[in-house]
């Protein structure tokens, strides 16, 4: 194998391993997150304490440019149940259960994440 090929492959494997390790470390604490945040293009739309939810309900989030997402909330769980984006990746994600794996609708700029109560927000880019 040519030298350059090997370097590229090793580099990619390294990035892969580093990202897998970071995910494992960041996601490995046992507390189960219960506070859901819904943001549109980074701006906080709604915060929901999933433990306070008594009955399942749905609500719609619009992003100001014609996009909408329907968020489904039940006791302890939240997911995106419908959207008008072309690929519906956000809907297929299912319930958001881990604080490192949010449900994201990129065409509409909508993100549904869950976090521990009182946890400081460490994962935003500053404007």
């Amino acid at each position, binding site marked *: 194998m*040519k*030298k*350059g*090929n090997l370097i*590229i*492959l090793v580099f*990619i494997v390294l*990035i*892969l391993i580093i*990202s*897998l390790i970071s*995910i494992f470390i960041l996601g490995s604490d046992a507390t189960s997150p219960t506070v859901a945040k819904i*943001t549109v*293009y*980074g701006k906080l739309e709604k915060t929901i304490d999933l433990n306070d939810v008594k009955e399942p309900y749905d609500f719609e989030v619009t992003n100001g440019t014609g996009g909408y997402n329907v968020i489904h909330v039940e006791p302890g769980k939240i997911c995106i149940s419908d959207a008008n984006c*072309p*690929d*519906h*990746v*956000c809907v*297929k*994600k*299912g319930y958001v259960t881990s*604080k*490192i*794996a*949010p449900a*994201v*609708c*990129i*065409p509409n*700029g*909508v*993100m549904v*994440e869950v976090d521990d109560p009182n946890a400081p927000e460490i*994962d*935003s*880019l500053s*404007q």
Partner: protein
Amino acid sequence: MSRLHKLIYLAMLVAISLVIYIVELQLPSLIPVPGVKLGLANVVSLCALLIYGPSEAIIVLLLRVLLGSMLTGQMVSLAFSLSGGLLSLLCMIVLNKYFSNYISLWAISIAGGVCHNIGQLFIASIIVDTLKIYYYLPILLISGVITGYFIGLAADFISKHLKKMRIN
């Protein structure tokens, strides 16, 4: 070959990559991950790079990205295709120009595929304003490697045959 000939051939390449792009958009996303586009239209940009050179390849890419988002009607997809495609093409241009003695084409294309997906994740993290989206990096790396490999193979075959047809 006259400038007109070259213009016509480049226009045909743009048209071909547009068709590939639009058809690929209709395919349902197999993985529930935002931004996993196979990026098959990059075969054409890579062919343009191999047959003509960096400037022509960039022009073909920019035209495809621009026309592609106009035809499929989403501003968001313009940012995605642009960042993914441009980063990937620039990476492949640099690798091809300076290291082609040390690297095979499939490895260049794999590097391009990985850059494509990293570029898309980068734009996604800016649009939705979060770093959490990098959670999807591992699976995007793997898909970038696989599609990059096949795109490299395809571009290799195609460009060799196109060169024989003397379109440059």
